[in-house]
C-alpha cells in the first residue's frame, strides 16, 4: 500500500511562497440550539494568538495565521500548503454580541454566539 510518491521540487518553493499570501476558508460546522449558535472551524497550525476574530456590523470576521516557519522546502512529498485562513459570517439578529466567546484547542476553533434573551423562543400564554 504505497502512499508516498517521491516528488522533487527542482525550482524550490517560489510558487508555494506566492501562494501562501492567499488565505482559504477553513472547513466549518455550524450548529444551533435554543440558546446559541455554535461554529467549529478546522484551523490546524494556528495558536490562539494567531487568531483575529472580530464582530462588526452584523459580520463576524475570522482571520487565522499559522505559526511561521517549519515549512522547509524542498519537500519529498507535499499534500498541503501552509496557507492562512480567513472567512466571514453574516450573523442574524438576536445574538448577544457582547457575550460571544471563542476558544481554540488542537487546531480547532470553537465560537459560541449566545442568543439574546429576547430572541429565545418563548411560549405566549393566551388568556
Amino acid at each position, binding site marked *: *500500500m*504505497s*502512499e*508516498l510518491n*517521491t516528488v522533487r521540487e527542482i525550482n524550490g518553493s517560489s510558487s508555494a511562497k506566492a501562494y501562501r499570501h*492567499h*488565505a*482559504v*476558508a477553513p*472547513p*466549518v*460546522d*455550524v*450548529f*444551533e*440550539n435554543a440558546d446559541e449558535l*455554535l461554529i*467549529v472551524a*478546522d*484551523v*490546524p*497550525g*494556528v*495558536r490562539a494568538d494567531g487568531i483575529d476574530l472580530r464582530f462588526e456590523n452584523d459580520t463576524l470576521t475570522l482571520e487565522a495565521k499559522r*505559526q511561521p516557519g*517549519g*515549512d*522547509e*522546502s*524542498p*519537500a*519529498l*512529498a*507535499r*499534500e*498541503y500548503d501552509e496557507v492562512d485562513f*480567513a*472567512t*466571514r*459570517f*453574516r*450573523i*442574524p439578529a438576536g445574538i448577544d454580541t457582547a457575550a460571544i466567546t471563542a476558544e*481554540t484547542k*488542537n*487546531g*480547532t476553533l470553537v465560537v459560541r454566539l449566545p442568543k439574546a434573551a429576547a430572541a429565545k423562543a418563548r411560549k405566549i400564554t393566551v388568556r
Partner: protein
Amino acid sequence: MLTGWRDFDDTLRVLDVLQRRLDRAFDPWSGPALAGQRAPRRARAAWPPTNVFETKEAFVVKAEVPGLAESDVAVSVEDETLVIRGERKTDVPDGYTVHLRERAPIAFTRKLPLPARVDVEAVGASLNDGVLTVTLPKAKESLPRQIAVKAR
C-alpha cells in the same frame, strides 16, 4: 481578496458558494455539505494531508490533524514504513440542529514507505495545534558519506 461569506438568510449565499467552490476545487477532502444531509461523501484522497521533508540527518513528516489529541492518533514504524493511525471524530452536539457540515468524521490509516533506513529507537513525534510532526533520524548507514577517490 475574496473570503467566504456565510449568510444565514441565504441572501449572499451565491457569492459564498462560488468562493467556496474555488477554494475546494483543488481540495481533495471536500464534498457537498448541505444542512440536513449525511456527512460529505468519502474523500477522494488520503487523510490527513501530509508533507514529507528531508534534512541531512532525518526525515520529517508533518500531517494536518485538526481536532486530534495525542490519544486519538497512533504512530508506529513497521518494516521501514511509517504508519499513522487514528480517528477524527466530529459529532453533532446533542440537541443542536445543523446549518452547515464540512468536517466529516474519519478513521484513517496512512502508510508511508520510507526512502532510507531510520533509527527506529530515535523516532519522535509531537502534536501541536492539530499538526502532527514525526521526526525520523536516518540510520547511521543512511547518512551521506564521502567516498575517497584514490589515484592509482
